[in-house]
C-alpha cells in the first residue's frame, strides 16, 4: 500500500469529495496544510461548526416560506449541501435518505418530509440503534410504510418487513415468523390523523403510541422470546451480525467504491460492534483506512453529488440572495434523482445505474454550462489561478492545470488525446491576465468544459 503524505492535496481532495461534495483547489490546498488527520477529525466533529443560518434564505425565497411548495425542502437541502460547514453531516444524511427511503409521492406532506429529513440529519452519525428507533418514530416513515394501519387485531407487516429487509439486516437473515413478530411488536406505533391539505395547506403530525392497540403477547424474534415491543426488537436487530454487515456494506459502497470488498466490509463491521454501534467510530475507521485512501474516483457520483460538486467549483449560490435554486433541484431530477422522492422503498439504484444516455447528457450539459459561465466567481477564480507565474502555457500545461483545478481527475490516455487534439492549433497559449484576457479565457473555459464532459468527471 502506498504511503500518502498527510498534506497530499490529491488525498485531501478525495476526502472532501467523499465526506462532502468536493472543494475548490484553493480550498483543498488550504485544508491540506492543516493535514489529512486533522481534516478528518474536523469532518467527524462537525458539531463544533454551526449549522447554516437559513432565516434569510427563507425570507428571500418566499416559496421556501410556503411549506406547501413541494420542492421547498429539496431546494433548501441543496443550498445546505453547498454551504454547510458540516459537509459530512449532509453527506451522511443523503446516504440515509437513500437507504431509509421515504418520498413525497406517497407521504404527500412537506412538513412531515421536512421533519423526517431533520431527524436523519440529527442522527446521521450517532448510534445506529438511536437512528433506527427515530426512524420507527418518524411520522413520514409511518405513513410511507402504512404503519398507522398496523393494529393488534389486524397486523400490517409492511414496516416490520422493511425494517428487517431494507433498513438493517437484509434478506436471508430472518424468517417469515420473524417478520410477523417484528410487525406485532410495533403495533400501536402510529400517528395522529393530520389535517388534510385543503384549504389551508399541509399540517404536520406527531407520533403517538396507542397502548390499547399494541399486541403485548409473547413473541419469538430471531431466536429470542419475550413480550417484545418495538424498542426490544431494535435492540435485538442492532446486535445481530447481519446488521453489522449491512451497516458496513452500505457505508463502504457509499463512501469507498461501487465494487464491494468483503475484507474491508468485515473490518468496518467489527468496528461497528466494538464501538457499540457508533457510526462516528465506523466512519473514523473508514477515513483512516488504506482502502479508502486508495479508492480515488472509484464511485459514480449521484446526481446530487454531481450538481452540488459543480456548484461548489463555480462558487455560486453562496448567498441567500441568489435566485436559481429551483434550477439545481430540477437538474438533479433530470439526472434521475429527485430529492425527497426516491422511486421506491429501495431508494435509488446507484453506481453505473446513474448513467444512461439521457442522464449522461443532462450531467454533461449541466457541468459544461455552469463551468462555462465566466460570471460565476469560482470559474473566474479558476481561470485567474491557471497562469501562475507564467506568461504562456503549452496545451499540456493548460490541460494539467485545468485538471488540477477540477480535482485531479484520473484522466485516461484517450481523454487526454481528445483534449490535446482540440488544442493542436495552439502551441504557446498566452495567459497573462487570467480571466481579464479574453482569448485565454475562451480557451481555458473550453478545456474546463471538455474536462467536465469527460467520463472521468462522472466519478468521485
Amino acid at each position, binding site marked *: 500500500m502506498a504511503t500518502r503524505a498527510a498534506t497530499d492535496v490529491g488525498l485531501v481532495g478525495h476526502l472532501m469529495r467523499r465526506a462532502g461534495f468536493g472543494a475548490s483547489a484553493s480550498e483543498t490546498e488550504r485544508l491540506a496544510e492543516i493535514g489529512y488527520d486533522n481534516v478528518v477529525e474536523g469532518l467527524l466533529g462537525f458539531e463544533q461548526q454551526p449549522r447554516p443560518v437559513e432565516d434569510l434564505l427563507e*425570507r*428571500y*425565497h418566499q416559496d421556501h416560506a410556503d411549506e406547501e411548495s413541494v420542492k421547498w425542502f429539496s431546494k433548501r437541502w441543496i443550498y445546505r449541501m453547498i454551504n454547510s460547514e458540516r459537509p459530512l453531516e449532509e453527506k451522511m444524511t443523503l446516504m440515509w435518505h437513500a437507504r431509509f427511503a421515504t418520498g413525497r409521492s406517497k407521504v404527500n406532506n412537506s412538513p412531515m418530509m421536512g421533519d423526517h429529513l431533520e431527524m436523519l440529519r440529527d442522527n446521521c452519525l450517532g448510534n445506529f440503534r438511536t437512528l433506527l428507533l427515530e426512524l420507527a418514530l418518524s411520522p413520514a416513515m409511518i405513513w410511507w410504510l402504512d404503519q398507522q394501519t398496523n393494529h393488534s387485531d389486524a397486523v400490517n407487516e409492511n414496516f416490520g418487513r422493511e425494517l428487517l429487509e431494507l433498513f438493517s439486516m437484509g434478506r436471508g437473515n430472518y424468517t417469515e415468523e420473524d417478520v410477523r413478530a417484528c410487525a406485532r411488536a410495533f403495533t400501536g406505533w402510529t400517528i395522529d390523523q393530520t389535517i*388534510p*391539505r*385543503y*384549504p389551508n395547506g399541509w399540517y404536520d403530525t406527531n407520533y403517538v403510541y396507542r397502548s390499547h392497540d399494541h399486541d403485548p403477547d409473547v413473541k419469538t424474534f430471531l431466536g429470542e422470546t419475550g413480550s417484545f415491543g418495538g424498542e426490544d426488537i431494535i435492540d435485538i436487530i442492532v446486535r445481530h451480525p447481519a446488521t453489522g454487515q449491512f451497516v458496513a456494506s452500505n457505508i463502504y459502497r457509499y463512501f469507498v467504491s461501487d465494487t464491494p470488498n468483503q475484507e474491508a466490509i468485515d473490518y468496518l463491521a467489527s468496528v461497528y460492534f466494538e464501538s457499540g454501534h457508533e457510526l462516528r467510530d465506523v466512519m473514523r475507521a473508514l477515513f483512516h483506512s488504506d482502502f479508502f485512501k486508495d479508492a480515488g474516483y472509484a464511485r459514480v457520483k449521484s446526481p446530487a453529488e454531481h450538481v452540488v460538486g459543480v456548484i461548489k467549483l463555480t462558487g455560486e449560490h453562496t448567498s441567500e440572495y441568489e435566485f436559481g435554486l429551483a434550477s439545481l433541484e430540477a437538474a438533479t431530477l433530470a439526472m434521475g434523482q429527485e430529492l425527497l422522492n426516491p422511486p421506491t422503498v429501495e431508494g435509488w439504484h446507484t453506481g453505473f445505474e446513474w448513467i444512461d444516455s439521457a442522464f449522461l447528457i443532462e450531467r454533461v450539459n449541466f457541468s459544461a454550462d455552469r463551468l462555462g459561465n465566466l460570471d460565476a466567481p469560482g470559474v473566474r477564480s479558476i481561470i485567474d489561478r491557471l497562469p501562475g507565474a507564467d506568461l504562456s502555457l503549452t496545451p499540456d500545461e493548460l490541460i494539467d492545470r485545468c485538471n488540477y483545478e477540477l480535482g485531479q481527475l484520473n484522466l485516461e490516455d484517450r481523454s487526454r488525446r481528445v483534449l490535446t487534439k482540440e488544442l493542436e492549433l495552439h502551441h504557446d497559449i498566452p495567459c497573462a491576465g487570467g480571466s481579464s484576457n479574453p482569448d485565454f479565457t475562451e480557451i481555458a473555459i473550453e478545456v474546463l468544459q471538455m474536462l467536465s464532459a469527460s467520463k472521468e468527471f462522472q466519478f468521485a
Partner: protein
Amino acid sequence: MTGILDTPSTLTKEIEGDYPMLLRMGHRFETSVGQRLLVDGLYGAIDVALDRDGLIYVINKHVGSPSGRVRIAVCDLDDQFKPDIWPMPDGEREIMGEEKLPSPVGFASDGNGNFYGTDEHTNVVVRYTSDGETLGYWGESGDGPGQFNAPSGIHVDPTDGNLWVVNTRNSRIQKFTIDGAYVSGFGEVGSAPGQLDHPWGIGFDPINETLLVADWRNDRIQRFTQSGELLQIIGPNDVEERHLNRPSDVAVDAHGDIYICDRGNDRVLHYNPRGLFLEQFVGDAVMTERGADKLMANPDMLQWRDHIVDLDREKRLMKPSAVVVDDQFRLYVLDSGRYRVQVYRKTFRELQPGQYDGPETYTDPKLN
C-alpha cells in the same frame, strides 16, 4: 422585581405624544378572507395594504404562485375578490422568468388611490393605482444616500405624502418623494441599540410622527425620530414568553398602539405606546366560503377531515408576514402560510379627564 417594573420594553427615553387615555377592552375577531382559489388566491403573499374604499390589496411573490408571476390580489371584508392586478412596468404583462419586478416585499397605500411597492431583487419602488395601472418605477442600486440595496418595508408618511423605505441589506431607513427624489435617511448595520440588522417592515406612529422599524435579525422593534434618534426598543429584554423571533412588520393605530408581526413565532403582539405588552394574537380564523368550496371539491379530504381530533390548529397563524390597521381600528394580519388575512377589531373606551386618576403623561417607572 415583578409586575409593571418588569417591563417588556427597554425605553431609552420617555415617549412623548398626545396619546389618549384608553380603557382597552380587547380585540374581537371579525373575519378571515382569502384562502386558495383554484389557481390563484393568496399564494406567496408577502404584504398587505388597504385602500380608501375598504378593499384589501395583497401582493404575492411569483415563485410560489401556480400562476407563476407577481400578482396583486384584491378583495373586500366579505371575501369577494376583484380581478387581480398584474404589474406591468413596461405597459405589458411580464414574461414569466423575465420579470422586471420578480421579488416584491413591501406594499403601501397612500389612502388616495395610489400604492407603492418595493422589489428587493431589482432595487426599485413601483407605483400603482388602485385600478391596477402601473404608473412606473424608480430606484438606483447601491449603498449611498438615495440608493437601494434590497428595499423591503415601505410606508407612506401621512404628514407629507412622502415614502419611508427600509433598506434591508445596508440597514438604512430612507425618505423619498413619490417621484424618487431622496429626502433624508439614517441607520447603520449592527446589533447595538439604534443599529439595525436586515430590517424589514416599518410603521408610523401618527401621534408623534415617529417611525417603528422591524429590526428583523436583531429580533426587536426600534422606534426612531425621523432624524434617526433612537427612542424605544421592544424585544430583546422582554420576558421569555415574549421574545420576538424574526419580526417582519409593525403597525401603529390611531391611538399609538403597536402591533408587531412576530413572524417566527406565528403570532402578532399588541403593545401600548410605552412598550407594555397587552395581548397576543395567534389566529382565530374560520374557514372562508372559498375554502369550503375548495374542500367540497375534494370529497376525499372532506371525509378525511371528519376524523381529525384537533381542528383547533386550523385557526392559527402560520408565518404571518405583515400587519396593517385601518381607521376603524381593525387589525389585518396577513397569514401568509395559510393563504388568508385574519381581521380583528379593537374595542375600547376613550377616557375623559376625571375618569382616570393616573398621570397625564406617560412616564416609565424605571426612570423614576
